[in-house]
């Protein structure tokens, strides 16, 4: 690690006492950003964690500086220079940027802001898979900040945010219910346009595997399901409105079914 890093670190911690800089808290506290947790700056400052992100986000350097609040300080010319020098070793783009410094300065601030949001989202998706990140998300999970399952028999089970793709611009965020193991859209419209890649496809899986007690809790839960009835009578299977989705909420219960379940371990047996 270069000395500039240490310099930068000590400078920022001198200015504001917390470990967090300004941009991240303000981004996370914005309306509709309740699903985001705060990524500590030391995670972002570790270049290893940023591997290949430079290719995915435009104006990577400037965006990163904005997230780490290095940009505002850089009206002090020497420090601004410093932050460019230090990146030059790792990043080819930044040397290019350095050449056309005059040109890049014209780049609209809102474009940089947008790039910073994308970058932060992708960093966020990586961070929440770390131990520290899982802890931060677990806290949000406990406070039901991702909402609760709309399914009646799930009894208000907390949801986990989840992406259907790890690249930006494919799908918006979805919510996974550990109880019915199904995927839902957020209840509130303010979350409907959040990018799914900011949580990533692996998050619910890693979360379930990290907090084993959650799976145990879900297993102990009641496995009720609903069947449509008219005046107390079930509807015939042959009817168009007959029950066709029972399997979706079905769990093995009899011994025979458990045997069948065991056969499903690696492949779907012939019915």
């Amino acid at each position: 690690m270069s000395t500039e890093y240490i310099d930068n670190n000590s400078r920022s911690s001198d200015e504001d006492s917390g470990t967090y800089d300004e941009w991240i808290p303000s981004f996370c506290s914005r309306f509709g950003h309740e699903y985001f947790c705060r990524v500590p700056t030391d995670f972002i400052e570790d270049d290893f964690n940023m591997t290949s992100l430079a290719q995915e986000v435009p104006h990577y350097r400037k965006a990163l500086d904005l997230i780490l609040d290095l940009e505002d300080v850089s009206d002090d010319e020497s420090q601004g220079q410093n932050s460019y020098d230090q990146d030059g070793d790792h990043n080819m783009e930044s040397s290019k940027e350095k050449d056309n410094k005059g040109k890049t300065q014209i780049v609209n601030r809102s474009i940089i802001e947008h790039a910073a949001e994308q970058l932060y989202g992708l960093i966020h998706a990586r961070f929440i898979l770390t131990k520290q990140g899982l802890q931060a998300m677990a806290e949000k999970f406990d406070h039901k900040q991702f909402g609760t399952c709309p399914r009646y028999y799930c009894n208000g089970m907390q949801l986990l945010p989840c992406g259907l793709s790890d690249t930006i611009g494919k799908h918006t965020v979805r919510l996974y219910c550990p109880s019915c193991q199904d995927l839902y859209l957020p209840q509130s419209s303010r979350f409907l346009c959040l990018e799914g890649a900011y949580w990533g496809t692996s998050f619910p899986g890693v979360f379930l595997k990290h907090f084993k007690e959650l799976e145990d809790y879900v297993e102990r839960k009641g496995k009720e399901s609903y069947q449509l009835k008219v005046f107390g009578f079930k509807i015939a299977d042959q009817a168009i409105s007959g029950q066709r989705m029972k399997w979706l909420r079905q769990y093995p219960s009899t011994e025979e079914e458990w045997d069948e379940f065991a056969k499903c371990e690696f492949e779907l047996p012939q019915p």
Partner: protein
Amino acid sequence: MAEEIEQRLTSERDINMDKDESESSDYAEMWIELFLGRKGHEYFCEVDSDYITDRFNLINLQRSVSKFTQVVQYIVDELDESTLENMPRQRLEQLEKDARKFYGLIHARYIITVKGLQKMLIKYKDADFGRCLRVYCNFQPLLPVGLHDVPGEDCVKLYCPSCEDLYNPKSSRHASIDGAYFGTSFPGMFLQAYPEMTPKHPVKRYVPKIFGFELHKQAQLSRWQELQRLKLVKKLEDKKVDLNKSGGYKLLEG
């Protein structure tokens, strides 16, 4: 028991009393319209006043509220204005409360009649009851349903004809409506009356993955559940049920 008799007597007296003053007074707005326009009452449809005043339809509802006849007349705006004006405030509040409850109970009966089903069909097509939040149900409109036919037991739930599951209403305003105001049989009757409204059921489902690899336990369960589905399909095909029409399965694309 004595109370009951007294109640019946008073209600009979009410009938006699109201017979004399049968002229309907002009209200600026009808009670039903006011009720339906209230926030949170979007799930209700308009019950014809003919249906409400037909005593046959009210069998067994008499005891659900006190002064049943007065409540009925209050709902259809046939209660004399002077009676209303002379009423103490407390009684008026009680009357309004009873009227809402009574309307709900009649509503549960009305929506499974031919006319009521038609009205609910329009509301269903407009997705007035909301849409299923399950990702693979593709914004399927929902149907309201109660878990009990007796009021005061549980709140209204929403039935998704696509995944055949039960959901809580999105808004707390709707979540506090009594389930008995829609009844346990409504979605079943609705889908019997309009079988073409039954969507094809989605087969696609989600298994959590870590870096592209499915979680073993969850994947095993989903395979077992798929096996149950295939068994059902076989059973239905033996019974010569056409699963390519509505009520069948929407298989995976491609």
